Every structure is written in C-alpha cells, then in structure tokens.
C-alpha cells in the first residue's frame, strides 16, 4: 500500500437508513481526505449528516457504500479484534460527555486501558499523566456528577487519549458549554494538536470554533459536502449560500453595520457622503489606506466600525467607513480601493455621488 500523509481517507461514502416506509440518505457520496496533524472542521446545521459521517471513520456506523481508510488501514477489511484495536487509536469526544456516572474520574480515564498489558501501577501513572495534561489532577477521585461541564469534557478528552490515539474526533464537544468554557476547551484541543501531533476532526455548528482552531473546513448540507477549503478562503470568500450564512454568524462586523445604519447621521446621509464596507485580506492591512485617501483624493474617511482577525496568521480586516468629499474625488477613491484588492461594498450612498457613479454600483 502506498504510504501517504492522510490520517483519514473516506472515499465515496454513502450511509442510508431504511425506515419503515422511506429511506434516509444521511451521507450522500462523500469523499473526505484529512491530512495527518490537521485540525479539520466539519460544519453544518443539525441533521446535515455530520455525526453519521464521522461515525463512519471508526465504523461505529458502517457505510452502505464506499471505502474507509484510516492511517493507511482499510477499516472495512478488519476482523472484530483488529477493529477494536484500530478504534483505540481513534479517540472520540461527544456533546454530552458520555462519562460513566458510576466510576470516578480516574475510573473513567482508565476504562479503555482494561485488557491492555499495562500493570496497575502503569495504568495509574498513565491516568495521572493524562489528568495533568487536561489540567484536572485534583479531581482524580471525584465522580462526574460533581464536575462542571467543562471539567467533564476534560475528563472525556483524557479518556479519549488514554490509548495514545493519532486521531481525535470531536462531535459537537463544545456545543453544551458556555462561550468561555468553549474557548478554553478549544485552546486545549489546539495545544494537544501541537503537543501530540494529534489529528483533530472538529464537528460543530459554531463557526467561531472553526475560526479559532481549524486549518481547513468542510460544510455539509443534506448529507453532502457542499464546500471545502482552507480557513482563510472559507471565511473570506465563502462560495455557497450556506457557507456564507455560517460565516456571517461568526462575523461581528455585520452586527456592527446594523447598529451603524440605525444612527441618525447615517439615516440622513449627506449628499456628498458614501457609507462603505471594506474587506481586505493579508498585507493590504499594513498600508495606511485612510491616510492615502486624503492625500491623493482629498477624501476624508471616517471610521465607524472595524475589526481585524487572524485566520491562521493571515489578517482579515473589515472596516465600515464614511467617505466624504467632492463627488468625482470619491469616485476615484473607490476605484483606487478596488485596485488594492480590497473588497468594497457600498452600504449607503448620497445623491451627488450616486449621480457621478451612475447606475454602475448598487
């Protein structure tokens, strides 16, 4: 078999569920390749087929069609013992943590190590080491019912890592947590990715989580992957409507625009003013755009809202500004901005400027 750099290689996967009087196609011809060491997001609304798709990876869900290659191993060819061994190398965490209530934190973390050839002492050391890794050393002998959601998820992460897996599947693992805890769990996952070279598959409907730690992402709808790309492209140039919707949810600038539009001076925009949104990716940010506008075109730019985010070290900026000046100058200024690879969206335009630009712009 040819060795490659793929942790997960799903090819033409179908999963159908036969109900009494109809068939549900939960996963529809999905091919998914995830590189070793990646953090790969899978996004979609509830019912899109995300859980079903990732459960195919460890064969908790057998596909109706397609092939499942994990760590260069054809999962569908494994005998039940081999499959159990393969599953030990694929950790999984869940939305509702799924900890055993009748066992302590240590008991939960040690459970997957049963029947391994480790001694009691080695298991105990391993548990200590894992609890230290997730920052829960002091909770070793506590029962899950006494832990907060975030702590429970840390225990679940420690349990998922007990057999030193290469891959961690996170199925909505932060969806039951508050934003602050979500953030800390995501930070933990990102650090595990670095420390252990763990490939992470992050299923979520929260775009903010994808933005925070993923390198690549796929968007699912009706059992299909409708868009996939690296994070910078997903967020800066979403192509499909559903991706655009998701990106918008993680984009504070749209909310800012709503409140800007409600301001009185914007409601009654002067005839020589235009309200625009600028979006730019990468190095453009470093150039003093605003200063340039005044120097070259005698157009003043008044910043109303803005933010800059780093997506995998690529800055992506949004600015909402009012340009004001002589109509012709404003027109040239807009041309200049577009020449800089800045995406300009006109939100509201004064009459003078409108007449100069004509109907060419919205």
């Amino acid at each position, binding site marked *: 078999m040819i060795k490659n750099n793929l942790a997960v290689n799903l090819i033409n996967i179908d999963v159908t569920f036969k109900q009494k009087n109809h068939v549900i196609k939960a996963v529809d011809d999905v091919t998914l390749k995830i590189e070793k060491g990646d953090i790969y997001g899978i996004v979609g609304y509830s019912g899109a087929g995300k859980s079903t798709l990732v459960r195919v990876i460890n064969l908790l869900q057998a596909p109706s069609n397609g092939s499942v290659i994990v760590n260069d191993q054809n999962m569908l060819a494994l005998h039940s013992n081999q499959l159990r061994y393969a599953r030990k190398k694929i*950790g999984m965490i869940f939305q509702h943590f*799924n900890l*055993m209530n009748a066992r302590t934190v240590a008991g939960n973390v040690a459970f997957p190590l049963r029947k391994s050839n480790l001694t009691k002492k080695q298991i105990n050391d391993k548990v200590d080491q894992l609890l230290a890794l997730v920052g829960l050393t002091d909770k070793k002998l506590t029962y899950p019912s006494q832990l907060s959601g975030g702590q429970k998820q840390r225990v679940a992460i420690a349990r998922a890592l007990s057999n030193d897996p290469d891959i961690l599947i996170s199925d909505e693992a932060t969806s039951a947590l508050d934003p602050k805890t979500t953030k800390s769990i995501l930070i933990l996952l990102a650090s595990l990715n670095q420390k252990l070279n763990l490939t992470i598959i992050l299923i979520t409907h929260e775009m903010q989580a994808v933005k925070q730690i993923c390198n690549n992402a796929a968007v699912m709808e009706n059992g299909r992957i409708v868009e996939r790309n690296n994070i910078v492209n997903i967020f800066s140039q979403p192509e499909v409507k559903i991706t655009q919707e998701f990106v918008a949810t993680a984009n504070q600038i749209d909310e800012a625009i709503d409140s800007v539009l409600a301001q009185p001076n914007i409601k009654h925009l002067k005839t020589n003013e235009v309200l625009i949104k600028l979006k730019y990716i990468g190095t453009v940010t470093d150039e003093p755009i605003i200063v340039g506008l005044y120097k070259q075109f005698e157009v003043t730019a008044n910043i109303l809202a803005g933010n800059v985010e780093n997506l995998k070290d690529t800055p992506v900026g949004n600015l909402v500004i009012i340009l004001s000046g002589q109509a012709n100058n404003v027109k040239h200024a807009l041309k200049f901005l577009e020449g800089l690879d800045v995406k300009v969206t006109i939100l509201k335009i004064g009459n003078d400027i409108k007449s100069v630009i004509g109907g060419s712009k919205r």
Partner: protein
Amino acid sequence: MHSLLIHLFPNVVSQWNLVTQSFTETLFMVGWTALIAGIIGISFGILLTITGPKGILENTLVYSVLDKFINIIRSVPFIILLALVVPLTRIIVGTSIGTIAAIVPLSIGVFPFYARQVQNALVEVDSGIIEAAQASGSSNFDLIFGVYLKEGTSELIRVSIVTLIGVIDFTAMAGAIGGGGLGNLAISLGYDRFENDITIAATLIILVMVLVTQTIGDYFVRRTTH
C-alpha cells in the same frame, strides 16, 4: 411480659418450634429462589437488552423469541403455574411436595419477572455512554460487565429488592400446595384450625422480612448512586 404473650398468642407460644421451623423454611425457599431465579433472570435480562432495539448485538429474531417466551410465562397466574409445573418438579426433584420441590415453580414464576426488571434497568443506561465505550475499543464482554452492569448497579439493586419482596410473597403462596414455610403455617394452622394468632404472627414475620429487605436495599441503592 411472658404472660401477655401467652395471652395474645397462645398457639404461637405452644407451637413455637413449628413457627421457627416455618420461618427457616421460608428463608430457605426465598434464598434458593432468589439465587436460581436471580441468575437465570439476570442472564435473560442481559440477553433481552443486548439483542433488543439499539442493543450492542441487536438481533430482531432472537429478541422477539426471548421476548415472547418471557411474556408467555409471565402471563400464567402463579397459583396455576404451581399446579402446571408439577410434572417437571417431579422430574427435577423427585417429588412435588415440600420445601425443595417448591423452589422449582418459584424459580420459574419469578425469573421472567426479574428478567423484565433487569431489562428495564439496563436499557436506562445512557446509549451515549455505551457508544463512548465502543468508540474506545471495548469488547462486548467489557460493555456488558464494565458498562451496562456497572452503570446500572443502583437500578439493578432497586429492581432486585422489588423482586425479592415478590419472592417472599410467592413463597407464602407456594405454602398452599404443601411447600412449607410461613404461608403453609398460616393456612394449615391459622386458617384450617382457626388459630388466628398464628396467622397474625406469620403476617408479622413476613412484614418484618419485607421491611428489613427494603431497608437494606435502600441503603445499597444510596451507596451506589453517584
């Protein structure tokens, strides 16, 4: 005090040996039935759970056979079952009368009830917990003994207590066909010979047995609930 006892329970006092013997017989029947019906019932309960809907070894055919089997035995009233299994009892024990013989119909009458109780306790175990254990490469053996039974422990204790109290109840009935024990005592002396104080004493002893069982059970339920 002693004279008061003689006054209230004249026949009990005069036949004290018979009363203690009946109590021992009842304990004997309850103990053996609990053991035999317990083992068979828990095995069936586990099989029903794992072959049932969404079970780890889901198997519609096996499940429906087991399910119907249990239902049929459960639908036979116990007092009829007592008569019905007489031939079987003869084959197994050699006689159909006496305390040992009573254990056969008692076990047959109790195990389907217990199996259903065990099934109800085990299906309560969160399927997410089972899934997490499967995802971590657990064998079916580990899933049954390490997850189902472990997670279901307090619920299992609870249903076991309910069943044990049922067994005490059934043993009294088995007395009616010559099984011995407190039920037999209440009927042969209390009812047939109008020695009402014997009936009352038998009732009180059974009441105490039920209360003690319930109290011990509750203690362990609390101990195993986390």
